[in-house]
């Protein structure tokens, strides 16, 4: 993969942000876990394992944060040359998830495939892009709906 490997202060900031997010997630989980009954050792309740997992998770997340903080950037950040394009992909996929139940499988799949191809390739070879999107949508519609007889949304 020809990812952009970022290192240095920017990478350290991203690494710290991820480590902090993991600590926040584990802390929130532990906080929520304490809301359930822990029980006793011979009769553990719903909060038993989550509380233990939460405590271990918070401890490890703190250790991870300290490690990132002390080491600086523990490794390169490889989120690609153009994370914006990944975000555009995400937007199209979110629209696909939203539209699938509303306009049906075939139109939604065609629209999503076309949009993703346009994001990925730009406007070059527009006719080819249209043909690929159409053919692909038709093939998977036939495969899922008629060959495998799966209920389509």
């Amino acid at each position: 993969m020809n990812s952009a490997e970022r290192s240095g202060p920017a990478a350290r900031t991203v690494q710290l942000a991820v480590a902090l997010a993991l600590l926040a997630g584990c802390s929130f989980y532990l906080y929520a876990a304490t809301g359930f009954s822990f029980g006793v050792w011979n009769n553990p309740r719903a909060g038993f394992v989550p509380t233990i997992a939460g405590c271990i998770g918070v401890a490890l997340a703190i250790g991870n944060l300290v490690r990132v903080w002390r080491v600086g950037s523990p490794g390169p950040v490889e989120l690609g040359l153009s994370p914006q394009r990944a975000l555009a992909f995400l937007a199209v996929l979110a629209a696909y998830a939203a539209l699938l139940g509303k306009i049906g499988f075939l139109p939604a799949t065609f629209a999503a495939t076309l949009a993703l191809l346009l994001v990925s390739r730009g406007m070059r070879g527009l006719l080819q892009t249209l043909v690929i999107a159409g053919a692909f949508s038709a093939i998977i519609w036939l495969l899922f709906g008629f060959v495998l007889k799966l209920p389509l949304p």
Partner: protein
Amino acid sequence: MTSFHALLEGFQLAVTPGNLVAAGVGVLLGTFAGMLPGLGISGTIALLIPISFGLDPFTALVIFGGIYYGAAYGGSTTSILLNVPGEGASVVTCVEGYAMARRGRAGAALSVAALGSFFAGMLGLVGLVLFAPTIAGWALAFGPQEYFCIAVLALVVLSGISGQSMVQSGLMVVVGVMLGTIGIDPMTGVERFTMSSDILLDGVSFIIVVMGVYGMAEVLQTAADGDSAVSPPRIAFRDLYPTREELSRSIPAIFRGSVIGFLIGLVPGPSGTISTFLSYAVEKRFSRGRDQFGSGAIEGVAGPESANNGADTSTLIPLLSLGLPFNAGAALLLSGFLIHGITPGPNLVSTRPDLFWGLVASLVVGNVMLLVINLPFVGVFASLLRIPLGILMPLVAVIVLSGTYFIGNNLSDLWLAIAFGVLGWVLKGTGYSVAPLIIGLFLGPLIEKGFIQSMVLADGSLVTLMSRPFSGIMLGAAALFIVIRIGLELRRRFGSAPLEAASAPR
């Protein structure tokens, strides 16, 4: 009925025309999807699970057998032809395989990789036939204590050998366990961590998480990397023949690699990656062509490729006999089985021997198909690599997302897959391995159930848990592993400190 007779009956099921076609389709699709950079076996199975929907369970097993072997070989093809390792297990293949390709010996490297994979796969399957029924027989006597302790040992070992820091991989395991507690607690019926959302009442589906963190995350990574056109070498059928010397040098390497892979596959963790590196080191030290390493030594392809496939096959022994996956690929295979109502484990061997032996036979068929189909079509596969990722990845994205819908016919699952895709992209991009998370998610509920049942049975006494011979050994091994790992870490940190200080520029 002996194992041999049972296996023969399994073959009667596996070699019907329909199932042979299914195996062929599985191998072809597995190889093609396995060639996509970054997916690996886990991502490939996740991507292709939807094609098994609607099929009868046994045909689905046959397809999965083909996909499993095809995916492993697909990764090798990309490594040898493009110098792009699809996953950790393919890294060392790149070194010697790509060097061979640059010398015009790509065909020989591919055929030796296929032969080695075939031999190692067969060795692993012999081990499966010999050992899995016996282990399953013992496992019938296991109680929740034993399962709890095996799962704990698996997670502890996995945390220690995942190729990143123990803190990082341990954290990923625990995050997986945490995700596994979401939903209604099966022991008490209490709703946990659902944030009052109906979507999470049934918990977070293992397969959806995998489709997110492997399939969707790879799509996002490739989108961010941009469209890249590649030009693999053209390969004719006659190029596939290794020379007599190449063959004679490959055979011992294949044998050594197969044995290494078989043994490493029985250990929890990324067995494929570890076994390939170990095999590479062994070949570099002992093979006849060790002076050619770095410039295209065929032993550097034959050994690691055999080790990889050997590990992928022998890891099926704990999967099928105990129902416990020791790495992400096995967990994915298991999830594919579960979707079709087949639960691997000791009960499968005793109550549905037809399915168990049919599955073993279908794995043999898949392995043979790999050799029969992939070698003649290797030129076609090479040309498929010319399709730009800018076209392929949008199509993969749509397949992953629409496939997510078909798992539970639930549109809200799509949102979960997207969310886990983002999580996987960010985690992998910042150096965290998601394999421990996947195994933690899978084993977490088993650990919780086993632990609670054990505590109830032992009246809350941990001593009782440790005093049972098998569970005591497992917990002791887990504790010993942690102590050794910490000792090694301390030795590395403090033992090398003076050296680093001495060599540091002043």
